[in-house]
């Protein structure tokens, strides 16, 4: 067993800062605005700096269009650029590197039924998010941009979370008795 090394106050506070969600939220907000200021000439829409659902859509549909020569719908910024937006690839690689560096990477298998449920969940969440035009993250960016519909989305999402949590609580109670 190696005794934990004492760390200096600067490293202590830096590590505390990068592990706090509020810091990442602030960073995404500023960087999304910066990326719009940098890249908007390539095409719209506005408030599109970071979004998991839309950027997955752009990545998959854009690459399918390039490889299979189809004409699936995607945002103008991805249509005009040489390759679609790559932020989801970045998230996958970045999280993988972080998990590896901090020794948190661990293969977790599950049942086939769980895989099917999660597959369907991802499928449905994408349909719903694309009807609105964004996942929770783009909803936050759009609210910051001044869009009232996005605020409606966030409020009803919070209500949906409450309903889902109540359902989970009820199910847990039934299993106990």
């Amino acid at each position, binding site marked *: 067993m190696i005794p934990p090394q004492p760390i200096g106050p600067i490293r202590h506070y830096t590590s505390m800062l*990068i592990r706090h*969600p*509020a*810091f*990442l939220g602030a960073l*995404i*907000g*500023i*960087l999304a*605005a910066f990326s*719009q*200021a*940098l*890249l*908007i000439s390539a095409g719209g*829409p506005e*408030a599109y700096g970071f979004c998991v659902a839309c*950027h*997955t859509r752009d990545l998959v*549909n854009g690459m399918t269009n390039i490889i299979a020569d189809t004409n699936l719908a*995607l945002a103008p910024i991805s249509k005009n*650029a*040489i390759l679609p937006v*790559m*932020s989801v690839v*970045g*998230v996958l*690689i*970045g*999280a993988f*590197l972080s*998990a590896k560096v*901090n020794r948190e990477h661990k293969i977790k298998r599950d049942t086939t039924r769980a895989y099917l449920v*999660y*597959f369907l*969940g991802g499928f*449905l*969440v*994408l*349909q*719903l998010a*694309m009807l*609105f*035009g964004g*996942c*929770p993250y783009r909803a*936050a*960016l759009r609210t*910051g*941009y*001044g869009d009232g*519909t996005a605020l409606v*989305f966030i409020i*009803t*999402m*919070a*209500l*949906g*979370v409450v309903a889902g949590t109540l*359902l989970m609580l009820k199910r847990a109670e039934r299993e106990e008795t």
Partner: protein
Amino acid sequence: MATGILPKEIAIYAVPLVTLLLGLLIGYLAQRSGYCSIGGFRDYFLFRHTRILSGYLSLIVFSFLGYLLFWFLTPAAMEHFFWALSSDPFSPVPGAPAGLVPAAYLIFAAVPGFFVGFICVLLGGCPIRQTVMASEGSYKGGFFFIGMCIGSIFFAAYVSGWAVLLMKSLGFGA
């Protein structure tokens, strides 16, 4: 047509690169902090924990401050900021299927919002959390991500057309 810092000829090459770097940084920090939007609301409702929720709230506040900052620096890139003042406050920023009246987009915000929250809390995380869990080695998160990938082709091929058709038949066509 909005113009940003980079001219169009350079921006079309910069798009994949800049977004990749942005995603790398966000992915790394999201893994460190356990960032999640749905989880924030859930933890607040269940335990009154505000740690994860603070991430989502700070995203809303700082995206406004960020857009405000770059609106001062590069006004041409923020053509419609502040949206609620420059156009109808309850018309959406483009991104959803086009060609409907604003009331239709309110329905498209309220109904999917509820079900996104409902489904995601039952599966234990919003899209970014599932993506990060997939990278951490969770097969469930991986299947969620694959579901999103297949779903995006399905949405573009069928669902967006159906949704517009449905709303137009209900009298919401613009």
